[in-house]
């Protein structure tokens, strides 16, 4: 795997606020790299320094072998950008927007193919102002793909979208990845990062507090999972507390919650129930999420 983005000691301040305070990471070719964290953590500033839209105060940034600020034009030819806050003239039509932006690049994808792929074919002649939130976002994705970019930047791709539109955005990201494009995205939805990203950097107050594959982040911190089930009738003494990995057993009425961690924790609990012939219903497991990782790293809840 070759490295396509290299960031070392990135700093950026606005006045006295240190938006990005010494961030270092690399992005490998073909992966989906995510940056998560609460609003104001420095995600957008970081991604915009990498895109060449902002100049870093200090640090080294290299993208596809180029200096994003110094070689902005050359880099812009090869990347696709979806900005967190951007707009198009309200009376511009979808087809016109794609043709216009296509004209800015040397390599382009035919606009008709793009609208087809993004499900905007019937919106070809619609003004931008008449599009729904999801359609608008699709158009901005189409604009980001118009130059057949090697790498795509998505800043808060699904913020403000309804769950259905959000899911269809996720499918688009997976499709882009399958086409071999490297993707760098930011989000403040931990679930989104977990579902889409090969690797995730958790940002807080302008610093990276953790960086790894989402499963590894969850596992490395030893955050407990839970097995929850109900036992009909009286809950007898359950022989669960002695199982390896189990930390605590809570019972209230018919409901049982077993806290624990480790790879085989869940299967051990289930097989113990089977061997002791304990009838159980509605068993589900609650795995820790990146949300829990953030909480355990920063001591704070992620807020929207």
């Amino acid at each position, binding site marked *: 795997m070759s490295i396509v983005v290299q960031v070392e000691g990135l700093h950026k301040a606005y006045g006295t606020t240190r938006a990005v305070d010494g961030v270092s990471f690399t992005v490998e070719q073909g992966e989906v790299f995510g940056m998560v964290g609460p609003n104001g953590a420095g995600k957008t500033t970081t991604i915009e320094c990498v*895109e060449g*839209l902002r100049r870093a105060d200090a640090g080294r940034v290299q993208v596809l072998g180029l200096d994003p600020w110094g070689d*902005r*034009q*050359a880099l*812009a*030819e090869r990347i696709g*950008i979806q*900005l967190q*806050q*951007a*707009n*198009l*003239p309200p*009376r*511009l039509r979808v087809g*016109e927007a794609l*043709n*216009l*932006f296509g*004209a*800015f*690049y040397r390599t382009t994808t035919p606009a008709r193919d793009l609208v087809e792929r993004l499900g905007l074919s019937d919106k070809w002649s619609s003004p931008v102002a008449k599009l729904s939130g999801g359609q608008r976002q699709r158009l901005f994705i189409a*604009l980001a793909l118009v130059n057949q970019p090697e790498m795509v930047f998505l800043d808060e791709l699904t913020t403000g979208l309804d769950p259905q539109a959000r899911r269809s955005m996720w499918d688009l990201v997976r499709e882009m990845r399958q086409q071999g494009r490297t993707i760098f995205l930011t989000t403040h939805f931990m679930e989104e990062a977990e579902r889409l990203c090969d690797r995730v950097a958790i940002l807080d107050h302008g610093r990276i507090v953790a960086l790894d594959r989402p499963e590894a982040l969850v596992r490395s911190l030893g955050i407990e999972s839970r097995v929850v089930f109900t036992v009909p009738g009286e809950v007898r003494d359950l022989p669960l507390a002695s199982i390896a990995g189990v930390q605590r057993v809570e019972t209230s009425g018919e409901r049982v919650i077993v806290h624990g961690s480790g790879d085989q924790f869940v299967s051990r609990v289930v097989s113990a129930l089977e061997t002791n012939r304990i009838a159980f219903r509605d068993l589900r497991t609650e795995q820790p999420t990146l949300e829990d990782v953030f909480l355990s790293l920063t001591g704070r809840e992620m807020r929207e």
Partner: protein
Amino acid sequence: MRGFTNLTATALKLYLREPLAAFFTMAFPVLLLVLFGSIYGNEPSPMFGGHGTMDVSMPNYTGLILGTVGLLSIPITTAGYREQGILRRFRATPMRPLTYMAADVITNLLMTVAGMLLLLVVGWALYHVQFEGHFISYLAAVVLGCLAMFSLGYLIASLAPGARLAQVGGMVIFYPMMFLSGAGMPIETLPESIRKISAFLPLTYAVNLLRGMWFGEAWSAHIKDVGVLLAMIVVVGGLASRLFRWD
């Protein structure tokens, strides 16, 4: 180059889809012409050195178009595009800033010329206005006046924090100029004391030059007008491009 032509073509289309902008550039001057034409007609008048009111109104109203486009349309559109994040989206492409600005200037120039031609056609058809100059010279005066007014418009857009204030800024400068520069009404109709104020308004020099070129006067008779307009382009335009912001 493909980016430039496509951007210009798109901007022209958008201009025509923006009813208010198109109205002020194309329709409003024609309405004024018809209104005042029906009041005063185009009889030769000693006040205008034997020319008719409508003859004099042609270059005046052309000046009015320059002012409208430069001081109302450009600041509102430019600051609005910035405020809405449209300029940000353009900046995320390999397009060079100069390409964007050149396309915007050309678009507004073409709209101004289109407004002027419409005015000319109506003036000629209804009042048989007399053009006594050289078309190329007149066009050159239009371009010079445009660039000077546009510079001011871009500067307002750069200085204003948002579209609302850009609009207010443009109007504060435009309306006095409309009445006092000779664009809205012939300068001969203004009292001497008011004309002293006119000398401080940049549009006065554009209108003066346009009138000179309309009636076939020599460029040498308008060195001061040309000088003021050129100085504006260099100083104000230079400042505007330095202060130009994408977001």
